[in-house]
């Protein structure tokens, strides 16, 4: 599937969708030029046309039980979830932030220890 924007001079493929998009290059070196040149980071890009974005229909999603998800669900530690549900949303995110800080300290300790 291809969509053409005005003044096409470079193109990129969206990471997961298979959609090929075209953009323009002009003036200073910019994000799209870097992407067109290196071929890297295509997930960063690139549909510079807001109307185009809004026109895209959303896929229909089946929300019926999925056997794979049901299989994974058996291994979910629900005791953690129940504890989290006792907290407010803000407290839950504070807990996440505290854990991130803890992990960062561990990473730093690891860097020092195994340098």
């Amino acid at each position: 599937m291809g969509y053409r924007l005005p003044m096409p001079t470079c193109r990129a493929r969206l990471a997961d969708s298979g959609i090929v998009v075209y953009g323009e290059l002009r003036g200073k070196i910019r994000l799209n030029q870097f992407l067109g040149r290196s071929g890297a980071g295509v997930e960063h890009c690139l549909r510079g046309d807001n109307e185009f974005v809004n026109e895209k229909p959303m896929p229909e999603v089946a929300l019926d039980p999925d056997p794979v998800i049901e299989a994974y669900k058996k291994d979910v530690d629900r005791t953690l979830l129940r504890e989290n549900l006792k907290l407010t949303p803000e407290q839950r995110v504070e807990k996440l932030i505290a854990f991130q800080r803890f992990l960062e300290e561990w990473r730093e300790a690891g860097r020092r220890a195994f340098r």
Partner: protein
Amino acid sequence: MMDLKALLQALVKAQVEFIVVGGVSASAHGSARSTSDLDVVYRRTPDNIAKLAAILKPFHPYLRGAPPGLPFLWDGDAIRRGLNFTLTTDLGDLDLLGELTGGGTYERLFPFSAPVRIAGADCRCLGLEKLIEVKRAAGRPKDLEVIAELEALREERDRQGP
């Protein structure tokens, strides 16, 4: 170093219109999984793009995974020409999404979001049902465990009642 609190507070202080999605949103709902970045869907209006460009610039946004030294220019024009950006900043990794896979734009997601106070900042967070829906729609194998946990969370929440 991730400073989620400072990142969220900066966006809110600048009055950027955005919806928190992804791992931080899942955490706000009660997920026990950790995350190392902040995912937000931003509104693609000229005014909002300008605010986003201005507020992030002091934190040196740069394309995550890109080699250092590229002439990457962060401004409103770069945001307007692009859509989804996976960035590193001085405050941590930030995914700025103009469109969420399976969920669409800010405008499409807004009715499925709710105001919530996160890390001292009043912002909007995607609802649990929609979060499950977009994860399912994205269809990424890596999300299967995440979806399982979110669905378990919904079951636990519904079991407890209001």
